[in-house]
């Protein structure tokens, strides 16, 4: 069954203590190339079919429930043509879908 991927990230201007904690710990381990970490969520939503109506519905859910617009942004809603795990190692195509 097709999967729609929704990516949600904390708003850039707000605190992300969890990301900060990971970045701090990496810095303490001497990982000098890494200057920042932010932690968001990735939703994999299995749908029975993909069409504009379904996509519109998922987009709506992404805005109203999967994210809280006061503190988070939905940064992407797209159809995963393949599960990324299946094609790790090669560039994979995902059709990005506008919000």
């Amino acid at each position, binding site marked *: 069954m097709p999967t729609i991927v929704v990516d949600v990230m*904390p*708003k850039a201007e*707000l*605190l992300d*203590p969890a990301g900060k*904690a990971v970045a701090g710990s990496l810095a303490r381990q001497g990982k000098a190339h890494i200057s920042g970490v932010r932690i968001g969520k990735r939703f994999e939503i299995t749908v029975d079919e993909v069409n504009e109506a379904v996509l519109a519905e998922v987009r709506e859910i992404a805005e109203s*429930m999967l994210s*809280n617009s*006061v*503190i988070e942004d939905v940064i992407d809603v797209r159809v995963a043509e393949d599960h990324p795990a299946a094609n790790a190692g090669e560039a994979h195509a995902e059709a990005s879908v506008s919000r």
Partner: protein
Amino acid sequence: MRVGVVTFPGSLDERDAQRAVRLAGAEPVELWHSDHDLQGVDAIVLPGGFSYGDYLRCGAIAAHSPIMREVVDAANSGMPVLGICNGFQVLVEAHLLPGGLIRNDHGQFVRRDQQLRVENTSTAWTSGFEQGQEITIPLKNGEGGFIADAETLARIEGEGLVTFRYVGLNPNGSLNDIAGLTNERGNVVGLMPHPEHAVEAGFGPDTSTRMRSGVDGLTFFTSVVEQALARA
């Protein structure tokens, strides 16, 4: 006076909230998440807990439950609503209160007897306190860090919406030590600490003189009851 206490799947402190309502001299009324019926109550408490497991964002799924549509309408027409911990998160997710609540900055669940300063005594739930009074209320949460963007924060402070501030120790990284908020109208109040756990001597927080004897939380409930009496 009848005070509704909403139970969502995963609510935990609803019986404590009912007990607090009773000890304040009012009648608790159980409200169920999937109903649309407020049963004619005069005020509403959204209790603490982990509604729907709180796996997505705390309070997020509960904010979409049927009863919340009624609660939002009632709140907008002035009914006193108190959100405690998870209830506060639900109020924030339902946009009845500004800002957001995120994972504690230290990443752990924390339980402690928390000192608070009462910053606003003109709300439905705080009128029995003195301005600036310091009270001790148990706190227990994993996601109590209050955040808001700079503009919102300035507005919250400017309009005096901050109702409680952490004193002594900020347990979760909340901006400006914010522990609780009210809305412009003062009928909706949300806070992370648990006043319903400080209503009965023997089961409350430690005080400076006696173990487990703090009852500062009772004033939340007597405030709303006394105002109702005054109006009647």
